[in-house]
């Protein structure tokens, strides 16, 4: 499991670890039932304290992304969508905020932006067709 922590970001490390595990699950790089590294192992790999890793795993467990089996380790849970609706919305909101900021600075109004987005989406579908 490869996790890249950023020091240029003040987001607590336990959240960075938890978020990245979710993305690895969402992108299929971590599969259901797959075992995660031990708390100590990941702490040494990332040079962060075991407390931080344990907190990330607890966070993931409370959200149902992983299951911790006593004595056996921590595993990706089965079949649960790794990203909750709230999480999906959070990710999209970030992108949309950036888009809105930019379009306002460029003087593009909301109606035009929506029209552009729709056109783009149609084109996107078309490209996908062609690729197939």
């Amino acid at each position, binding site marked *: 499991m490869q996790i890249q*922590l950023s*020091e*240029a*970001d*003040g*987001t*607590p*490390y*336990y959240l960075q670890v938890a978020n990245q595990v979710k993305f690895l699950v969402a992108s299929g790089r971590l599969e259901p039932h797959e075992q995660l590294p031990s708390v*100590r192992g990941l*702490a*040494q790999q990332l*040079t*962060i*304290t*075991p*407390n*931080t890793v344990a*907190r990330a795993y607890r966070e993931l467990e409370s959200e149902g992304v992983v299951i911790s089996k006593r004595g056996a380790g921590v595993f990706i849970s089965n079949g649960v969508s790794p990203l909750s609706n709230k999480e999906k919305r959070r990710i999209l909101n970030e992108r949309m905020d950036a888009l809105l*900021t930019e379009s306002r600075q460029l003087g593009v109004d909301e109606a035009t932006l929506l029209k552009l987005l729709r056109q783009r989406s149609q084109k996107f579908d078309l490209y996908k067709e062609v690729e197939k």
Partner: protein
Amino acid sequence: MSEHVIEISDLSRHFGKKQALANVNLSVPEGCVFGLVGENGAGKTTLLKHVLGFLKPQQGTVRVFGLDPVVDPPGVLGRVGHLSETRDLPTWMSIRELFEFTRAFYPKWDPVYAEELRNMFELSLNQKVPTLSRGQLARAGLLLALAHRPPLLVLDEPSSGLDPVVRKDILDAIIRTVVDEGRTVLFSSHLLDEVQRVSDRIAILDQGKILLASPLDEVLVSHYQLTVSFQEPQPFFPQLTGALMWTGSGREWKIVCNGQKQELEAALQELNAEILEQNAPTLEEIFVARMKSVERSAAT
């Protein structure tokens, strides 16, 4: 045993007229990595020397494993691995002699572990201390601090002035120490990105006083950074509660803030300022903002 490995209460210290420590209260829980940060001359080394029993408190108490380090040096130092800022190793010795010499003080010296560390740090037994490079000196000092597997590791500026490879060794050693069940690390550092990476808790020391002592995650989430845009250029940044530091000119400013988010947002709205961006400042940005804020209140 108490769950706090180190307990410091109301510790004060003067050197002549200079107050080096003023009513310091600090607890270090077992099994955590505690980072001590502060500007040069803030009192970090003085505080660590009290923990090690090298200085006697003029006021207040210091307890390590429940013991007074001044009264019971073997009881405390036998369980502590420490690396001083000046890495004062005897200059006439070779690495081999240094091992034998240090080993005599620690009944729990682990020769297998010492040898493992020596190989990892690529130190040769016949090399003499004065011929060691800065990085090798740090590694040798670290080895001596670790080889008796102490339950408490105290490191004073362990990575200042070292190259990234040696710094990585030091951080790895800190992590390896806490990964071994229940062990504790107290270290001071200037390198705030490192402190942010490896610490569970931090304390900021400023002119002998504890400015802040808290779990690192709490420090990080209680501070935030805003980029704001005013409708008119501002010659000076307006006075706002919660704003610790600001940089910028004209219409756009960046502010580092602590708490009081609703009040601050309301105040900005009143000034017709728009929040363009909000992000999480790093520990370094928080530290600088705190220091600027202290300087400002001292100046007024």
